[in-house]
């Protein structure tokens, strides 16, 4: 059974690793639209894939979050990537598979996946 003692061990391990992380500056924020439009279009598996993949790859500077309606419901599921050093990237009509590619190509290697962006896919 999962116990709170186990959670304590997780806390101690996380604290031990914290010193390494704090030196880094602004991180990357990935936001998935989770309003009615996004959810109906399949945003939940997209969000959970981002959460899981970012954890699996141990991307400590990436924060994954949810937001409401971004205002372009016809393009849902919509994912926005905010980075300190470049303009916001908007990915549209996302799926779990596309999310994995975005994690590996964009978040890990800094290359925007042009084919999924609103500029390409939205046309």
């Amino acid at each position, binding site marked *: 059974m999962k116990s709170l003692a186990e*959670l304590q061990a*997780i*806390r101690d391990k996380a604290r031990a690793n914290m010193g390494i992380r704090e030196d880094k500056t602004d991180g990357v924020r990935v936001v998935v639209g989770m*309003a009615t439009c996004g959810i*109906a279009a399949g945003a939940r598996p997209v969000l959970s894939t981002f959460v899981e993949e970012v954890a699996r790859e141990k991307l400590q500077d990436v924060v994954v*979050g949810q937001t409401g309606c971004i205002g372009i419901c016809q393009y849902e599921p919509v994912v926005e990537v905010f980075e300190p050093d470049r303009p916001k990237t908007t990915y549209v009509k996302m799926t779990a598979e596309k999310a994995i590619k975005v994690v590996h190509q964009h978040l890990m290697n800094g290359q925007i996946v042009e084919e999924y962006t609103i500029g390409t896919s939205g046309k």
Partner: protein
Amino acid sequence: MPEFFKWLVGGEDIRELSLNVMDVTQNSITAGARLIEITAEEDTVQKLLKIVIRDDGSGMTDEQVEKVTNPFYTTRTTRKVGLGVPFFKMSSEQTGGSFSIVSEPGTGTTVTAVYHTDHIDMTPLGDMNETVLLLVTCNPDLDFIYRRSVDDGAYTLDTRELREVLGGDVPLSSPDVADWIRAYLREQEDSLK
């Protein structure tokens, strides 16, 4: 009426109640809630399911409560329809169940949906664990209490308790904590069967 809703969202429909819960809980988050309580109680003898979402957010006036079940009412300015609550309401009422919103400005809102699970138009509850896990890990500054029961079996996840163990410096969104929550929910849910 259902056909009309499907038309509004281009033929898509929300096929799991756990997705409705995720959607409606977003309203609590937007309303500035600090503590959100989600309950899913099942009675397999009476064939009833009750879902309750309660928050301590900004609340609504009676007039607003009356309006939120109308799909052409929304607080947003990006478009003119809001379907979250109407969908949730429809999902319960189409099973012969009931739906209510009780709210008070400054105190919070409680949304309750009751389902007759043996009705032909019953939507499956779906993956509540996934909904709860995502709500907790993507909103690490908010507290959630998830209460789940099937007949006499019950369990609770209370992020305030987890937070007490984790201290102020390890967020609920840490991957290892998320793994713990995922495993805990799975274990508890399995023990109900």
